[in-house]
């Protein structure tokens, strides 16, 4: 039990070890700060969080400290009195902001951060509107190159050193440093050591002003045009919580979303910058069906009805010969629908887990200068490059009793045991061709091959039907990450005019006359498959729900 008084309001923080900023946050009082970040060490260098702090004595008297102190560096304990509204505290905030703005170029109209810039927000809320600076501003020139993805506008920097601490404490290689001292301080890299580690993109999110910008996003959009949706990064089984920022059906950037149950505060560059494929021109846009030796575009109505009849025929001829490959890029809801559909065709239908891409080994951070991983691990990029292997596996276990892997499917196809195969893909092109030539060879022996994928691949040459798949940014559903955490994804952009989402295609195939609604399907899934029982309310919240491990 530790009771604090924030602006005369008592708040109980229990036995938690909090600083004054966090403790005031519990009382609903926001203390502005730049250099402090919950995942980084405390330096108390920006002086933005100056507040008045005192102590309530057992006899009821309050002894205030004679000066303002930085909230990030002051531990909150029983009886601490925090005052943020006094003239002295507010004066300190104003003076700090005036000092931070002395050399700031105020080029907000051309700055990418404008709109989500803490310097703008705090100046508006806590600062004064005029500067008394009469000397010329000290504006160091922009650095030409500090990294593949990062641009540094040195004149906008307020020297909070968040980026420097991030590269030292989380990514570990310590590429960034503060050069020169005092008035002339600048952020820079060590000569010949650019900021190119796999977590480098996070410094853009960490930067409270527009000094570090992403070259990928630079000048693409003003941030106030973007609409943000909560989602999950599909690039590895860590399942980082993210925001998908999109405007007019184009995904412009991904940002990490703080989630202590998933990855923490950050995300890696592999996931962050791999968004080009979502709006790529080469995406499959409409269903194709084979007529004689050519694949021609067809309407959904004809494709769905003919495909359904073909599958039913195949199942009637030989139930064991009908199979589906469930890609680990499918959401749990889609995998559930596909499994249910196949088992509905024939209880003997076989279900396989799709290709699980694995690249090297788990990549842990921080790393030292030579690239050796250090303890304690603060961030992991997993070798398994798909978001939902666990979820799909659990569905396969429930519907098929065991998990059959992709190579078993190829064996069966190669041996000519398959009458019909529903093959789902949806792998981002970064992973390369997921169906090498020998595999395609085996697939040609399947008389009725249905391929559902985002891009044209070799397998389609022998496919009877090709259905366009949707990317993670176009669908609703949930992914189960490596640790069994189920997190919801939400659509941020619409699929092409002639495309349908994966879930909708399956619903149409099952002749369930309804629109894809992930929450309803999740309720069904939770009620039917015991592993997903915690999802039976359908609601996952922002942080997700941990399923039984």
């Amino acid at each position: 039990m530790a009771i604090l008084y924030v602006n005369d309001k008592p708040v109980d923080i229990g036995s938690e070890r909090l600083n004054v900023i966090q403790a005031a946050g519990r009382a609903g009082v926001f203390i502005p700060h730049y250099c402090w970040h919950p995942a980084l060490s405390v330096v108390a260098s920006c002086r933005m969080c100056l507040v008045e702090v005192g102590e309530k004595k057992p006899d009821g008297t309050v002894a205030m400290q004679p000066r303002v102190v930085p909230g990030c560096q002051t531990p909150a304990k029983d009886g601490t009195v925090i005052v943020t509204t006094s003239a002295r505290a507010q004066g300190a905030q104003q003076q700090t902001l005036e000092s931070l703005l002395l050399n700031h170029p105020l080029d907000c109209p051309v700055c990418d951060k404008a709109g989500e810039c803490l310097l703008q927000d705090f100046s508006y809320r806590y600062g004064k509107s005029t500067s008394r600076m009469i000397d010329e501003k000290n504006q160091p020139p922009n650095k030409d190159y500090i990294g593949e993805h990062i641009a540094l506008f040195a004149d906008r920097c307020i020297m909070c050193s968040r980026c420097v601490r991030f590269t030292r404490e989380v990514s570990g290689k310590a590429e960034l440093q503060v050069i020169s001292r005092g008035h002339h301080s600048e952020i820079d890299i060590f000569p010949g050591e650019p900021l190119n580690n796999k977590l480098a993109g996070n410094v853009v999110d960490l930067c409270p002003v527009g000094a570090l910008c992403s070259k990928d996003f630079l000048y693409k959009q003003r941030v106030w045009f973007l609409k943000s949706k909560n989602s999950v990064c599909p690039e590895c089984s860590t399942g980082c919580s993210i925001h998908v920022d999109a405007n007019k059906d184009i995904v412009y950037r991904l940002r990490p979303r703080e989630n202590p149950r998933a990855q923490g505060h950050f995300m890696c560059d592999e996931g962050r910058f791999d968004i080009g494929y979502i709006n790529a021109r080469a995406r499959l846009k409409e269903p194709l069906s084979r007529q004689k030796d050519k694949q021609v575009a067809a309407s959904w109505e004809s494709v769905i009805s003919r495909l359904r009849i073909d599958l039913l025929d195949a199942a009637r001829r030989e139930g064991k010969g009908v199979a589906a490959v469930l890609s680990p890029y499918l959401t749990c809801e889609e995998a559930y629908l596909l499994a249910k559909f196949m088992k509905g065709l024939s209880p003997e239908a076989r279900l396989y887990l799709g290709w699980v891409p694995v690249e090297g080994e788990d990549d842990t951070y921080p790393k030292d200068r030579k690239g050796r991983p250090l303890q304690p691990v603060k961030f992991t990029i997993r070798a398994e490059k798909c978001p939902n292997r666990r979820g799909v596996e659990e569905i396969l276990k429930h519907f098929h009793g065991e998990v059959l892997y992709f190579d078993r499917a190829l064996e069966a196809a190669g041996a000519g045991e398959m009458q019909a195969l529903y093959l789902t893909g949806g792998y981002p092109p970064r992973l390369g061709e997921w169906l090498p030539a020998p595999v395609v060879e085996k697939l040609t022996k399947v008389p009725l091959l249905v391929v559902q994928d985002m891009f044209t691949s070799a397998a389609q040459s022998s496919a009877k039907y090709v259905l366009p798949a949707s990317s993670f940014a176009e669908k609703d559903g949930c992914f189960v990450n490596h640790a069994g955490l189920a997190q919801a994804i939400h659509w941020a952009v619409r699929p092409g005019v002639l495309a349908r989402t994966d879930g909708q295609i399956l619903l149409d195939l099952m002749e369930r006359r309804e629109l894809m609604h992930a929450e309803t399907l999740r309720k069904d899934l939770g009620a039917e498959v015991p592993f997903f029982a915690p999802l039976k309310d359908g609601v996952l919240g922002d942080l997700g729900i941990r399923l039984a491990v």
Partner: protein
Amino acid sequence: MPINENEVTWVKPPRMGLLERLYLPAIAQGLQTTLKHMFGKKVTQQFPEERPKLPPNYRGVHRLNRDEQGRVKCVACYMCSTACPARCIDIVAAPSPWPDREKYPEVFVIDELRCIYCGMCEQACPCDAIELTSLFDLTGLSREEMMFDKEKLLSVFDQTATKGEDPIRTKSGKLSIASEPNV
């Protein structure tokens, strides 16, 4: 819903007197107005031959101002398209090829048919790059023709800036240099 009978008030036209029924005073009154305008100051403008003199704050076709080196003054900050209530300004920004600024508009298109000529873009512009001119007789044969791109908006500047009717009204902004020095 039918109107309730007791809510209706019937009004009868007032009875006219003898003088009114003669109509002569009314005719005289009408003729007086006609004669006054026949011999008074002429106000009709013979439009295509005769151009109207518009007030200096008239809001007509937009132009994109040039700086003193003839480059487009706009820095692609999107303030105009943010302020625009008709959502008719479409900008694509790019890193600028010039060293004195960071950003410039690669594409700048105004849909003149969609625009409501409210002048908010002009007010929002932090570097006085977009201005409304007194050109009002805007015609085109297709919708595409009325999508004014950067080159066309700059050519409006070239046509109007020196003519005298639309001098560069605004002062130099802090983000860019004035079109004319010391203005």
